């Protein structure tokens, strides 16, 4: 019984990040909450297959992600676009003065292919390691790395970010050389 309540506490604690991940995947907060609900029920049922001491959050993200893709397959990928992401896809205009608006950023994020978007979210925002993200997505670590790097390049393109001193894999080299001084 105390096992169950520890587990429950763990689930409760994970809800905010599960919701954030679900919204990132589905672009839609109603759909996201359904996804989280489904994830919690599944997790509860599969409780015995969770090994205490391992990463509960990663385990839950895996369930949520599987659920998301299986729902998508069932629906045949229809109307992912209900909230006008297609429009966003066509017009992302970062504000003129070099500061990046959060709305612009979301729109840019939505232009990414799903696999790249989830990879950059898991690594850059959810705080997972490449190894954990690979496990969650059921792919190789190298695949995650290349998705993240493509996502980043793509976001930079879409948002016309340049002159940051961070360009792809050579970022370190260009930083060490001091892009500020060179410019």
């Amino acid at each position, binding site marked *: *019984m105390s096992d*169950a*309540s520890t587990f*429950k506490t763990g*689930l*409760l604690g994970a*809800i*905010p*990040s599960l*919701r*954030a991940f679900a*919204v*990132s995947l589905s672009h839609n907060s109603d759909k996201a*909450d359904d996804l*989280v*609900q489904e994830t*919690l*029920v599944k997790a*509860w049922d599969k409780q015995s297959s969770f090994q205490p001491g391992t990463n509960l959050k990663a385990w839950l993200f895996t369930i949520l992600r599987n659920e998301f893709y299986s729902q998508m397959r069932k629906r045949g990928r229809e109307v992912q676009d209900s909230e006008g992401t297609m429009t966003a896809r066509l017009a992302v205009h970062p504000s003129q003065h070099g500061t*990046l608006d*959060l709305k612009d*950023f*979301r729109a840019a*994020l939505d232009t990414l292919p799903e696999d790249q978007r989830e990879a*950059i*979210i898991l*690594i*850059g*925002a*959810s705080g997972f390691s*490449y190894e954990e993200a690979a496990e969650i997505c059921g792919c190789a670590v190298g695949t995650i*790395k290349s998705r*993240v*790097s493509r996502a*980043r390049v793509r*976001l*930079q393109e879409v*948002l016309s*970010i340049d002159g*940051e*001193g*961070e360009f*792809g*894999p050579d*970022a*370190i080299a260009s*930083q*060490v050389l*001091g892009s*500020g*001084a060179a410019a």
Partner: protein
Amino acid sequence: MTEQKSAAAGPKSRRGDDPLGANSEIGKKLREYYDGLMADDVPDRFTDLLSKLERAEASKDKDGNAQ
């Protein structure tokens, strides 16, 4: 210039596979976006759901023990 070089080489070289780190505009925005999502209040439906699941589990256990 020399100063800048040595300052840059230290911590940054250790951040070799963290291209989304503190100095990256993309990385910063990504976290801002995500933290905004995380900050939303958790709707009651989830806490209710978990309590319901827990109660169901508890009564199942009781049944199990009784037999």
